[in-house]
């Protein structure tokens, strides 16, 4: 019996048990993460076959009780987060505190995507954010601490915004359940509704790396160790962009979608343009992440209008999570230094710029099909522009890493290869299963 509760409860419990099992903490953490990944596979299979799961905790029925809601997309996101967390943890060589924080971070990110309750979502945001601040600082040098402090300041500002937004909704509707809110949102005072939306978007936007709320991103990614930068790019950021998608669906007004589209375009342009001349590798990857988050937001902002939006967003998320995480894992030294890193770098870059057989190809395909459906040619022009910019700086990145450098650390490059192969698998699967068929047979 798979229930989504286990995926949150088990790692949370394990995190608090960590001080008791100091010695074997790495094996313990790894097995917990693996268990969670297996659970998420089973959960996805169940959701895929039987439809969405709504589960109430502690017996209270909605709208009073806390409850979890899992549909296809959130199950897939939980799967991605837990799978990559498991692979990424192999590179950890730190003490038990690190493992504990890591488990907490994963719990929080998983919780964000599985929860059906807006206050719970806030709590999970706090859990994953606090764990991430500490994880960024765990490298213990000056830059790591600087990045961590900036992340913490902006993160706390963001979470207070989010809390105010939730408070407004609760004061109006006396409910915290996402579905309940969505059903009754139109009964809110319009000004209050816009106000709460703005607070929530600003609050979550800080974590989701949206422009101009993303000041912490370059510093935190640069300061963090490679595996934590990798964790940040598949964990909290992906969970938060999904939370924004839920927010958009709840409010579901054409103005909010329009706003999300503009924010997405701004984020995409600023991220890609800033990355264009950035010489520091990790900062460049961080700016590029900002650009990709903008692209995902653009995809989500089309949800209401076109059925291509969800597959587009999903494939970009998979492509970005796997490619950027693996690029971060092999970053931080001079040159690729070995054949594994070289192919990981190539595959990652090709996935990000959307070439087959990578997941990024389908992301680009669906996104532009959706944009063509809506006849938004200005957006198409922006995407053409940013794709070329992206190609140029990634080509420079690839060339820069060709030089003779330190030889590669297989402890990092093999997990990175496993991560990037997820993008390849997801790029080939649509050919085998009829995921792309809808376009042809429409």
């Amino acid at each position, binding site marked *: 019996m798979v229930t989504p509760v286990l995926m949150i409860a088990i790692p949370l419990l394990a995190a608090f048990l960590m001080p008791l099992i100091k010695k074997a903490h790495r094996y313990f953490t790894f097995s917990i993460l693996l268990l969670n990944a297996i659970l998420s596979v089973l959960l996805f299979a169940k959701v895929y076959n039987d439809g969405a799961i709504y589960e109430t905790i502690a017996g209270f029925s909605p709208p009073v009780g806390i409850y979890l809601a899992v549909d296809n997309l959130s199950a897939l996101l939980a799967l991605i987060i837990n799978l990559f967390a498991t692979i990424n943890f192999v590179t950890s060589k730190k003490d038990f505190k690190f493992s504990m924080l890591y488990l907490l971070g994963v719990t929080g990110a998983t919780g964000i995507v599985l929860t059906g309750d807006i206050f719970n979502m806030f709590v999970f945001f706090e859990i994953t954010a606090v764990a991430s601040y500490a994880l960024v600082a765990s490298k213990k040098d000056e830059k790591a601490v600087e990045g961590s*402090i*900036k992340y913490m*300041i*902006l993160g706390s*500002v963001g979470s207070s*915004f989010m809390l105010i937004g939730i408070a407004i909704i609760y004061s109006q509707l006396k409910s915290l359940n996402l579905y309940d809110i969505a059903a009754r949102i139109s009964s809110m005072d319009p000004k209050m509704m816009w*106000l709460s*939306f*703005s*607070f929530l978007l*600003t609050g979550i*936007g800080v974590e989701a790396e949206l422009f*101009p*709320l993303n*000041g*912490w991103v*370059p510093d935190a990614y640069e300061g963090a160790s490679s595996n934590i930068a990798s964790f940040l790019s598949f964990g909290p950021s992906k969970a938060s962009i999904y939370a924004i998608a839920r927010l958009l669906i709840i409010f579901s007004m054409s*103005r*909010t979608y329009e*706003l999300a589209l503009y924010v997405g375009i701004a984020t995409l342009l*600023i991220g890609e*343009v*800033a*990355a*264009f*001349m*950035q010489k520091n590798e990790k900062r460049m990857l961080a700016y590029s992440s900002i650009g990709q988050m903008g692209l995902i937001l653009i995809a989500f902002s089309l949800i209401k209008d076109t059925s291509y939006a969800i597959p587009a967003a999903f494939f970009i998320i998979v492509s970005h999570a796997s490619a950027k995480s693996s690029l971060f894992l092999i970053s931080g030294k001079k040159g690729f230094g070995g054949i594994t890193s070289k192919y990981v770098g*190539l595959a990652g870059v*090709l996935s990000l*710029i*959307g*070439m*087959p057989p990578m997941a990024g*190809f389908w992301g680009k*395909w669906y996104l*532009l099909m959706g*944009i*063509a*459906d809506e*006849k938004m040619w200005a957006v*198409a022009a922006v*995407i*053409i522009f940013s*794709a*070329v910019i992206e*190609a*140029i700086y*990634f*080509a420079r990145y*690839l060339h820069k890493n*060709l030089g003779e450098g330190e030889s590669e650390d297989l402890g990092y490059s093999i997990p990175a290869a496993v991560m990037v192969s997820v993008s390849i698998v997801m790029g080939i699967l*649509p*050919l*085998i*299963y*009829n*995921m792309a*068929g809808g*376009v*042809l047979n429409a």
Partner: protein
Amino acid sequence: MLELIFAVLLIAAFATLFIKSGRIAAIISLIASAMPLIAVMDWANDFGIKAFSFGVENSMDFSIAGITMHLSITSFAWFFAVMVFSLLPPIFLFSYSFFEKNNGFFPFMLFLITAVFGILLASDFLTLFFFWELMAASSFILVYISRDKKAIMSYLAFSVLSAVLILVGIALLYSQSGTLIFSDIVLNADKVTVSAIILMVAGFAVKSALMPLHAWAPFVYSKADEPFVAFLSGGLSKVGYYGMFFMLFALPGAKILHQYFNSGVATYLLAVIGAISAFIGTLLAFMEDDLRKLLAYSSIAQLGYIAVGFGIGSSLAMAGALFQAFNHAFFKSVLFLAAGAVAYRTGKWKISELGGVGYKMPFTFMAALFAIFALAAIPITSGFAAKWLLYEAAVSNKYIFITPIMLIAGVGAFLYSFRILYGVFLGENRHDDIKEAPLPMIAGMFLLVLPLIIFLIFPGYMLDMMHSALVDAGIGTISHTNYVIRTGTASYNTLAVVIGMMVVMIPAFLIYVLRKQKKVDFKDNFLAGEPYEFYGYISMHAANNFYKPIEDVIMPYLRKGAISFYTALYNAMGRVSDASRKIYTGLSQDYTIYIIIFFFIIVGWLIW
């Protein structure tokens, strides 16, 4: 059948990924690359002579579980397939000696072939785009092996530009006609708009190195491995032209453009762009000292002629364009391979450092000589027939701008070919210690020369091959027999020309061989009393500053070319990027203020 070919190509690609030895990888690739060629030749009965109408699918539809990839062969795809896949086995034969170690050339070349096979067989746009991108990705990795910064950056940037242009074009087509399947789009052609056609033609033109989208070509052609460059110039550029052919004539985009502008201005523009490519490419070519860059500019120029034919669009012009495409595929591959063979033995690329290689490598010289004859359109080669058709098409359409430019470019082609002949293969013998290229290299080059000779004598065969392509695309063909091409104004009998040339050449050759010769020392003929040491080694070379007067006249105008434009654009973009990063001040208080400002802006925007 198709499943088998794809499977063999992919298995070979994955196998060669793990093989260290270049020799074994070359043999595997050679066998694998023969598969699509055999299949294409097998389809000759369908397309070679008799007409085959577009839209009627062959029995070779193909699908893997789930999504159906509509693959079928059409007559014009078949023509391009013959051209592209005939190049491959000789190139792999050449590579057998060229690569001692497998540096990644073989696996990605096989992925590239798979992709090209898919592009030519695609009969819906998703399949086409998927394989187009696969081609871009695998050819990018082949460029990446060269480790040259400019080549890597320009190739990826232009590949992505081409891909997104095509993708937006496809998205437009889809939103207008509601389908992605070629035959359905052709039925709904009245709904297709001009913007989709222009976008897609521009996207395909990037791969064909048409000016001003050619800026990647000089860097990539001069740095990547020669066998790959031979295929890139010979084969992949034709894939771009296949896309253009599809958009302009099969769809038929040319008619839609004509209706929209109420005149032939758009296609005329394409012809002008092609002619300018031919002209400027030629000028740039004969000033280059790097042999590979010379060949790169020459490629740009020769590919420009094809665009001229596409732009004119009459049956005469199209026959000339396709003929030119076919010839170019072979002679340019031979020339790049010959350059590779010379570099393989001497390690040099600069014309000013080479010289007299032909005395030591006579077979390489022979192959290159024949290719140069074809390139310069000397009447004893098939190159002449192609250019003659194009010139006649331009003249009969009274294109007073294009015709003279093309003629000047044709003479220019002879000028730079002469530099290759004289600067590299003839002239002062500076390389006593080199040997002839290895046998597989020579065999590869001569296999590629073979079609040039066949179609020299029988241009009618070539016109037979393209007959059904031209008929299906609604262009119509020109009347011909095996030896004689008849156009509205003239007829060209190759047999008579060949016999006439023989009558002149054989006695001339005999006189050359049999006369009493006085061997003149090489340094005698131009020194005019100056001491040899006076100018140093390189400045004495006949190829050095060979066209200095012309260079002095035209160089100031060419300096502001496309490449400097892109460089300026890159630098400007860099300044924008540096400025945009000033937003990220690094101060938390600034970022907090951004958050608050953002909040107030969106609240204001939402409420009012």
